[in-house]
Each structure stands twice: as structure tokens, then as C-alpha cells.
């Protein structure tokens, strides 16, 4: 058996110091993904630094009306939090669309963002995978592709990010608060996850040893009128085929003054559909207008036989989601 050292961190700074000093050390949060990887041999750290008991488990309101979510707030608690449900319903709904009740009770906010792809080849150490072992090749190209990316993929990696929460956070312009050996920094969600390029082993822009300590949600009218919809292969407990996180603000005439659209299941990171958003600003929301806007965004999509469905699916789901928000429906 592989021996490893387990540290229970006393405070965030010492946890960061421990991991930063050891390239084979990892933070352990809820463990719902990392422990699977230990069993599968996907990763073999020599040291685990358990940060799940650090007192970073508060949800607090910020002076500007925003919300600060400690990294250790459990997914189930965050989904049930009254302020989240009122001011950022997209976040609560995304959380409830993910995993199972048991996993949501265990999984943490920061850990959710740092979960890794469920690509079958990434999780099978007998097959090549650039994300798991850089330089070995991508088995998903020419292999099982139902969950592959259609936007922003590279020759090195065609997988998707599995998180529902991250898609919602991208839509509401959340900020991730990160503690590193040199102190704290703030990373906008749009810069937190990255496209694979030629370094698919790097899911995020975090450096080794940097610890997510909190996520901050800015208040906005679009966040208040927001929702999350997810299409999947079974009614629960399945990753997204595609998902849509959206927020909408209309002016007095009913034209779009602010719109946020983020897609899950289509890329290596939550895909903020900025082209589609630009198309819709100043327009009336109609199914046709949203479909056209989504199609403009999807002009860059690259599909194959197995992923072709994602383009019409995410287009349709976006149209349904935004027309629903425009009608005042909240789901």
C-alpha cells in the first residue's frame, strides 16, 4: 500500500506553507473527488493536508450587499442558505442539480471548484491521458466522446469541467479568494479555470500551494433574477450533458439591460457566452432572439458524431432558460 502523511491543518496559513513546500502534497477538503483518485491511482500524493476543519465555513453578507462564502461551507448548506436563494438563485439551483444528497453534505465550496474532469480516460490509469500524465496523448480523441467539449478544446485535451456550481459562479461574476505563500489574492471566476491549450494538466490558474479560502458573490439585479438548467442522462446524479446558468435584468421597456449566460458541459471551463450576451443586450427577449444569439456563440463550436447534439441542446436550453427568466418564471 502507498503510505502517506496526513496533517490536520491548524490554520490556513500553515496549511498553505505545508503544501507549498512539498510538490507531492495536496489539500484535502470534503474528499469526494480526491479520495476516488487515490483509490483509482489517478494521483498519488505523499502528504494530505486536511483543510476541511478550518473555520472557513461561514456565509456572511458584505457591506456592498454581496455575499462571502467560506471555502468549507458544504454544498448542501450553501444551497439551502436563505440569502443565496434570494439573491443568487442560480447558485442554489446549480448546487441542487449536482451529485447526490450525501455528496452535497460532504462536498465543500472550494473543493467543488477544484474537482477534476470525469473523462473516462482520465480516470483509467491504463489509458493515455495528457491531463493525468502530460505527453502521453489524449484517448478521448477518437474514443468515448459523449461528454467531450465542443468549445475551446485543444489537440491535447477535449474534456469538460464537471462542476455545476462553477457554471453558476461564472454567470454571476463571482470572485475566488485565494491564500498563497505570499499572501491573499483575488481571482475573478472568468480567470479561475482555464482552457486546456497545451497544458491540460493545469485545470486552474492556481499555483501549487494556493488555497481557496472563500468565494465572493457581488449583488446584482441579474443575479437576483437568475436560474440554472441542466440536461442530463438521468433525472439525478449525472453530470451535465449541457447546462445553462443565466441571469437577466430588463429595463422599463422590457429590453435587456444586463444578461449573463454561462454554459456547462461544453468546455474545459465554465463557458461564459459573451458573444451571445452582447447579441442580446438592448434587445427584447424572445425564443428566436436567444436562439440566434446562442448560435452566434456556437459558431466557434467544433463537434463530431458523438458531440454534435450539444450544439442544438445548449441552444434550446438557453432559449428556454432566458425566456423563462423574461417571463418572470424563476425555474
Amino acid at each position, binding site marked *: *500500500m502507498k503510505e502517506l502523511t496526513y496533517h490536520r491543518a491548524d490554520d490556513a496559513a500553515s496549511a498553505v506553507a505545508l503544501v507549498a513546500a512539498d510538490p507531492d502534497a495536496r489539500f484535502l477538503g470534503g474528499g469526494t473527488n480526491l479520495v476516488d483518485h487515490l483509490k483509482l491511482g489517478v494521483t498519488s500524493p505523499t502528504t494530505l493536508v486536511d483543510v476541511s476543519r478550518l473555520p472557513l465555513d461561514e456565509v456572511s453578507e458584505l457591506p456592498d450587499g454581496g455575499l462571502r462564502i467560506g471555502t468549507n461551507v458544504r454544498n448542501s448548506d450553501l444551497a439551502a442558505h436563505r440569502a443565496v436563494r434570494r439573491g443568487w438563485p442560480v447558485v442554489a439551483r446549480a448546487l441542487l442539480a449536482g451529485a447526490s444528497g450525501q455528496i452535497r453534505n460532504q462536498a465543500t465550496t472550494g473543493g467543488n471548484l477544484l474537482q477534476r474532469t470525469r473523462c*473516462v480516460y482520465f480516470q483509467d490509469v*491504463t489509458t493515455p491521458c495528457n491531463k493525468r500524465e502530460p505527453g502521453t496523448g489524449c484517448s478521448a480523441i477518437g474514443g468515448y466522446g459523449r461528454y467531450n467539449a465542443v468549445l475551446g478544446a485543444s489537440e491535447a485535451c477535449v474534456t469538460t469541467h464537471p462542476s455545476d456550481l462553477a457554471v453558476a459562479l461564472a454567470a454571476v461574476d463571482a470572485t475566488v479568494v485565494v491564500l498563497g505563500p505570499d499572501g491573499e489574492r483575488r481571482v475573478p471566476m472568468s480567470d479561475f479555470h482555464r482552457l486546456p491549450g497545451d497544458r491540460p494538466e493545469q485545470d486552474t490558474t492556481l499555483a501549487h500551494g494556493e488555497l481557496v479560502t472563500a468565494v465572493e458573490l457581488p449583488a446584482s439585479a441579474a443575479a437576483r433574477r437568475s436560474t440554472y438548467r441542466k*440536461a442530463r442522462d438521468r433525472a439525478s446524479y449525472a453530470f451535465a*450533458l449541457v447546462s445553462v446558468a443565466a441571469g437577466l435584468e430588463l429595463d422599463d421597456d422590457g429590453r435587456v439591460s444586463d444578461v449573463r449566460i454561462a454554459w456547462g458541459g461544453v468546455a474545459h471551463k465554465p463557458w461564459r457566452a459573451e458573444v451571445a450576451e452582447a447579441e442580446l443586450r438592448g434587445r427584447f427577449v424572445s425564443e428566436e432572439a436567444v436562439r440566434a444569439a446562442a448560435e452566434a456563440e456556437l459558431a466557434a463550436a467544433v463537434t463530431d458524431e458523438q458531440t454534435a*447534439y450539444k450544439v442544438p*441542446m445548449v441552444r*434550446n436550453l438557453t432559449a428556454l432558460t432566458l425566456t423563462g427568466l423574461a417571463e418572470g418564471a424563476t425555474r
Partner: protein
Amino acid sequence: MTANEVTPDPLRSTASIGTSLLRRDGVEKVTGDATYAVEHPVTGPAGEPPLHAWLVTSTVARGRVAAVDATAALAHPGVVSVLDHTSAPRLADTSDAELAILQADAIAFRGQIVAVVLAETSESAREGAALVHVEQEAEPHASIFEEDSPTYAPEQVNGGSETDTLDGEPDEALARALVTVDATYTTPHEHNNPMEPHAATALWDGEQLTLHDSTQGPRPVRGTLAPMLGLEEEQVRVLAPYVGGGFGSKGLPHAPEMAVALAAMTVPGQPVRLAVTRQQMFALTGYRPPTRSHVRLGAHPDGRLEALRDDAVTQSSRVKEFAEQAAVPARVMYAAPHRATTHRVAELDVPVPSWMRAPGEMPGMYAQEVAVDELALHAGLDPVELRVRNEPDVDPDTGNPWGNRRLVECLRRGAERFGWADRPTEARATVDGEWWVGTGVAASTYPMLWMPGNVARIRSLDGGRYAVAIAATDIGTGARTVLTQIAADALGCPPEAIDLDMADSDLPFGSVAGGSSGTTSWGTAIVAAAQQFRADHGEHPDPGVETTAASGQYADMDGHALHSFGAVFCEARVHRYTGEVRVPRLLGVYSVGRVVNPRTARSQLLGGLVMGLSAALHEEGWRDPRTGHVVTQDLATYHVAAHADVQQLEAGWLDDVDELSTPMGSRGIGEIGIVGTAAAVANATYHATGVRVRDLPLTADRFLE
């Protein structure tokens, strides 16, 4: 021991049969006291603790093992030994190539056992397995079942049925027919995935091999493994007191059982435990092979069938033949003067397929019952009415009279209970918000299978109690409970007076818990033994007297066609924007003979319906053409229905007593619930959307617009 005919009025009462007696082992199971195959506290004769085995498997689909380098593994703390094809004990008989593991260097599929690591802990065994370096020479392979895969006609198909049948001139009749269907239906790789993985604890004490196994048949495991190991059957004891599901995958012994037996024989006196991983189950424990059924129906304008052809092609393995009998149910379902059924098999470099709940009937009735729905559409007839019009007077296959065919009543009663009459005739006629809504129906059938040779022993105990013994197994079905009820009524005592001993190969012969034949076959033996016991010892036997009796022959299988039937009704909703399918209502109405225990019977039928729903909507093993490997090899990527997929679910049955089949009046119920269910769902999605999907599963992308 006497082998006797069961005499008329075989049951002395029906006080217990027909009641919902609580599961005899329910409390042990829900409180965690039930010990499964690797949980038995087995130690060696001198108290030796168990060793742990871990399987090392091939990563090429065809080729040979050039060398196994165990140096690093053996250097790992806790690792005791590594067995490979050069060092494993030699088998006395290697004719069963699936089970003849570690005997030669050939690799016949990806995931084949090429080495076994023994270690002091499960963790060190697992790490040791990762450290074994297997040098493999890969050869070109063909592992994908394709339309142009070369095929052959097997000598017979699973269950011993004929490969092909022909009556009349179906091709000419099809050419003449005014209403026709000509379509191909496919089902994918499906994997049984019982909750308890295949697992066993083995102890070889130098003369005797004891196997605590997770199996559907202790006697069949003993009977298969003993001669291969060069042992007398009496030298092997197989126990399976609790089994966490099987769905057919534990019906026959598979390679892991041989691996643990071989490993144990290298360490006499030390128990060896092996639990197969979920991922390994996708290669080593059987699966339902993909099927492709070309169905052609020719009918008169009034819907009466004139001709029927069902040409089924399925996948088998070069290692061992398994021919899924997908065209067999077409032989009994409907009347048509001109009929042909054929089976062909593509032999590929893949793991050995095996039994999965209702082999043959499940994929075959999916194809046929969707084809019949298409025929109803073409004939402009209600699908229930079309089936009623094609009801055969006698079994079309054998010409025998039906024992108890009540399909029409199942259809009628189901239609009434479901509210079928309110259904719009046209497809794509109902929208409810974001959803298209439709309903569908399919028929279901399963043969009455009865295994010969079962033997039961009855001994009287103090206080009016009886010990009843038979090497049957309860794989979660409720067999332990219903056999207690059968014994009670056969002896004329309350069920509380029965001590049932089962699941041990040292007991009198019990056949496999498979083919929906368990209760039927074991129960007949228990009734025979009870009758003989009373004849031998009377109403007030002295404690300690006993009788052992075989079931002899009971079921009138030569004179009558004995089958169960059913009708499944489904409401499906298909999302207009995403194509996602949900099933808010599923109802099955069955004719299965007398129901011995309504509680456990309902559970079996509901479980079958759920498994059929799961096959309809989710299940698909995806084999990578490059590696020959099912890459959807866990329950996160091989989807089965989750709770949220199962909504209003109902199973009912006709009031039946089938004394032609068993002395209890019952027939088997383990499998019929899965049969036809996927067709009912597919037909409902067609009715909802007007989109006909002929390939399972019915995933969202198929309905996307």
C-alpha cells in the same frame, strides 16, 4: 432417497402460500448482521488470518503474455506471492477456456486475468497488483460488433433452443403482405452490476476446498470447479448464505472464482479473500452482448399477421460461445402461418457474455414489441387491439395447447387500470408545458423453466418443528421466505415451525437460482419430500426421523406450452427543448400462476420493471474500438436508473393457479418484469414525439430537435 411423482392435492393447506410473510433474513440484512462472501470470519485450522488476493488483468485485447515481472510487487511490504501462467497450479481440465485461467500465455480479451497477487492486507494486494509488470505482445484484434462483422450459426442458442426455425414460406408471404414492417432494432452492451461484486473467500486445507462464494448456485459452482481442479465433488464445499444480487451474472461460475480457488491451493491452511472491483466486473463476470434484430412483419389490412421473420445477430467471444436467444420469444408470441427465426453470432476478441436477467427475452421482446407497435400504426389499429387479434390458439412453436396463456386479460386489465382508452390515437398530440406526453404498451412473456434433479430433506425436530434442507440460494429474491412457506403448507404446519437450511453445497442438490426456475424447481422437491415424509412417518413423527426425496418430474412440459405473460403500460414525457425522457408512470400486469408471497413477488416484478426502464433510458456499455475495453466501467459512467428516474410504478397480477407447472400452482417471476418494459417505454416516446427510436438506450440526443 426416493424419486417420486408428486401426487394430487400436493399441498396440505394454503395457509401460508399467498400471504406476505416477512423476509426471513430481513432483519439480518438491514442491521448488517448478514455476512457476505468476503465478510465471513474464516481462519485457517491454526487460526491463520485470511490473505487478500488482487487480480492483474490484460490491457491488450489479443496477444500473449511475454513475461510477468513480479520483482517490484514481491518487494512491496505485505505481498506474499504472485501467481501467473507459469506458476499457477495446473488444472485437470482446461476445456472451459473462460475458467481455465493462468494456464497459458494467450490473451483473448482486454481485462483477462494474467496474474493474481496474494498479500497480507487488501491494500498491499492492490498496490502489489499495480507493481506487477506484465509484458504483453499485442496482436491485431476485432472487438467491435458491427453490421459487417462476420457471423456464423451456432449449433444451438442459450437455453438449448434451436438456432433457426422455419414454418411455411415467410419471404413469399412478406412480399405479398399489404401491411408490413421491416426494421432493425439494436440493444447495446448491458452489464448486470449487482450491488455486491463477485467475491469469494477460499480455504484449501490440503484435501478440502471451502468456498464462501457470492453465487446463484452453490451446487453448480461445485460441479463445475471440482473436476477442473482435479477434485472429487465432495472435496469442494460452496456456501452462499447471503448474496447481494446476481441478475444472472452469478448464475455460472466465472474466472474470479477459479482465481481464488487456485490462489488458495497455493497456500494450504490459509484463507484467501477476493473481491472483484466494479471496473473488473465489466470484463470478468459476464454481460448481455449487444444484439441486432431484423424484424419483418406482414399482415392483412385488419392487422392479422400472415408472416413474421426475426433474424437476430449477437456478439460472442472467441474464448467461449454464448448465443443470446433473442429471436426465441418471437416463436411463441403471435399467430402467423408463415414464420422464420434465425440466430447468428459474431465471434470477437471480447470478454465472455453470459446470462443477464431474461437473456433472449429482454432484447428479443424489445425488438418484436416495438415492431408490433409500428405494425399497429401502419394498420391503423390500437396497439392493444392488434395484439388481441393475433392471439394464437395454440403455441405456434410446438403446436401444443397453452397451459395458461392469459395475455389478453393482462392487456385488458392493464388498459383499464392505466386509462388507456383516453389515449389520443395520433402521435405527437399532447403537450404539457415543456414536455411532449405519450403512452405506450408492450407485451411480456417468459417461459416456465423447471430444473430437474432437485432433492430436499425433511427431518422432524422437537416440539413439532421441521428441518428442511436443500442447496438452494436466496440472492435477494425472497427464496428463503417463500421456500419456508411452501414447506409449511406442504407439511401442514405454520411457517414458524420450519427451520430452512440452504445455500450450502453439502445439502441435497439444489439447482441454480436462474431462469426464473428457483422457487419452481426447489419448491417441487420440497413438496415431494413433504409428501414422502408424511407417507413414511405419519402426522406425529418422532423427533429425528427424516426423509429425503427428489422432485421427480412434475411440470407437464411435453403436453402443454407453459409460459407466463404480461402487459406493460408506460407514460413517457419527452422534453421539447432537450429531448430528455422521463417516465412518470409504469404499470405491469402479469399472469404468473399462483403468487406464493405477494410482498416478495411485487418486489421482483417492480425490480424487473425498473431494470427494464433502466435499459430503456440509460444502460449502455461503450467498448473502445482501439483497446477492446468497455470504458464506461463504473456506476458514474455506466448509468442505471436513479431514484428520480422511477416515479409511479405499479405491478399487479391475475388471480391464477397453474397446477400444470408446479404443485404449488406457481410459475417463476424473477425475469418477466424486465421483458417488454423497454419496448413499452420506446413506444410511449414515439407516441409522445412521433420520433421512432429503434436503438437502445433512448437518450436525449435521439429526440432533440
